């Protein structure tokens, strides 16, 4: 029995030592390299007094950050686009999604002020980034089939323009991101012109 115990202990130790010395797989190295690259980019962004976005396609989240601090997190329900390894990098938003702004006017009751609220922001829109990247934001098809269908048509429209090279448009990578309606509106509210967007891995696993 003692010999059997010793043999089992030896076997367990050898298994442990083998697993400890197992070299990391190429996939692990790749993940580490991606995470390191994203950190390098973020250190540069965080060094400046600004608010920036981070889209982690692996973790399915869009983060609003400043100085490396997470200010807000939008869970991504679904996304579709080219291979995320190829998308990694820093982009800048060309323009905010358009919103109709009412004119300020005197009112007797301040509660009657015509203002813009979160509900006035679009839930399906495009974010054009520089260098060339198009992000299409839309709510889930199950919640808003009409809005979703409209955004799908827009996506095909952009694709068609790119295929036909209309207006000198070449094919730019497109990402379609599905957010809850409130999150989509909130993101539209928060983004500003020239806002940096970092796409990359933020966690190792």
């Amino acid at each position: 029995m003692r010999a059997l115990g010793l043999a089992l202990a030896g076997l367990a130790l050898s298994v442990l030592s083998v697993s400890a010395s197992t070299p990391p797989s190429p996939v692990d190295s790749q993940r580490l390299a991606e995470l390191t690259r994203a950190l390098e980019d973020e250190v540069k962004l965080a060094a400046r007094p600004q608010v920036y976005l981070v889209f982690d396609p692996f973790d399915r989240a869009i983060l609003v950050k400043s100085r490396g601090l997470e200010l807000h997190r939008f869970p991504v329900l679904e996304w579709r686009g080219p291979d995320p390894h190829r998308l990694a990098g820093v982009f800048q938003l060309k323009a905010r999604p358009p919103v109709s702004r009412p004119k300020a006017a005197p009112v007797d009751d301040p509660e009657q002020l015509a203002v813009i609220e979160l509900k006035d922001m679009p839930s399906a829109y495009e974010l054009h980034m520089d260098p060339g990247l198009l992000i299409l934001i839309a709510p889930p098809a199950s919640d808003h089939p009409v809005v979703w269908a409209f955004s799908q048509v827009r996506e095909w429209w952009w694709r068609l323009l790119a295929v036909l090279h209309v207006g000198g448009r070449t094919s730019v990578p497109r990402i379609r991101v599905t957010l809850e309606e409130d999150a989509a509106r909130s993101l539209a509210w928060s983004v500003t012109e020239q806002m940096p967007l970092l796409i990359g891995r933020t966690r190792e696993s």
Partner: protein
Amino acid sequence: MRRHAGQPLARIAGAVVLLCALNGCELFEAETDVRAASGSSAAPPVETLRARQTALKRQLAMQAPGGTYIVVDTARNRLYVKRRGETLLTALASTGSGTILDKPGDAGGGQWVFDTPRGEFAIQSKLVNPVWVKPDWAFLEEGLPVPKDRAERVESGILGEYALGFGKGYFIHGTLYKRLLGKNVTHGCIRLSDEDLRSVHRLASVGTPVMIY
């Protein structure tokens, strides 16, 4: 027979090509890239990457404010005072209405846009019993002529006990319209209740970062 058997396959292939054209071929691209990534031997050794990562995380952490900082969520009209990730205060606020007003005599079609600015700022001044020096838009919005005498622009008692300036004429201050807290009604300033304003004034100093999104 062979030709007949090939026709459905050709149709399927055609349909796949059509779907692919409309829907992006991402699957095919992804497969190609994943293979390329997996086979890559250009990545530095894991130990080197881990050491670099640790150094970068430290660098990133050093960018975060060491002391108190203010975070403003303009979509939900909330102001938070935080320190090292811990929330010291959560306050209901009023932020910019997003409305516009034409600048008179501006041939270029200039407008005032009453948004709370987004980005990172810092507290630049802390005023006690502040008075409001009404800007041109405050008169124009009410349909009144803009006075030339500065004294006619001064209004006291409407900004609360304190005002904390964070640049370009924007302040965190009090309000007479407490029932509007939680709504987007201001001309860009951030309004708080008296009690929350007192706390913010006590917790924040000149130089305290203000992060607005």
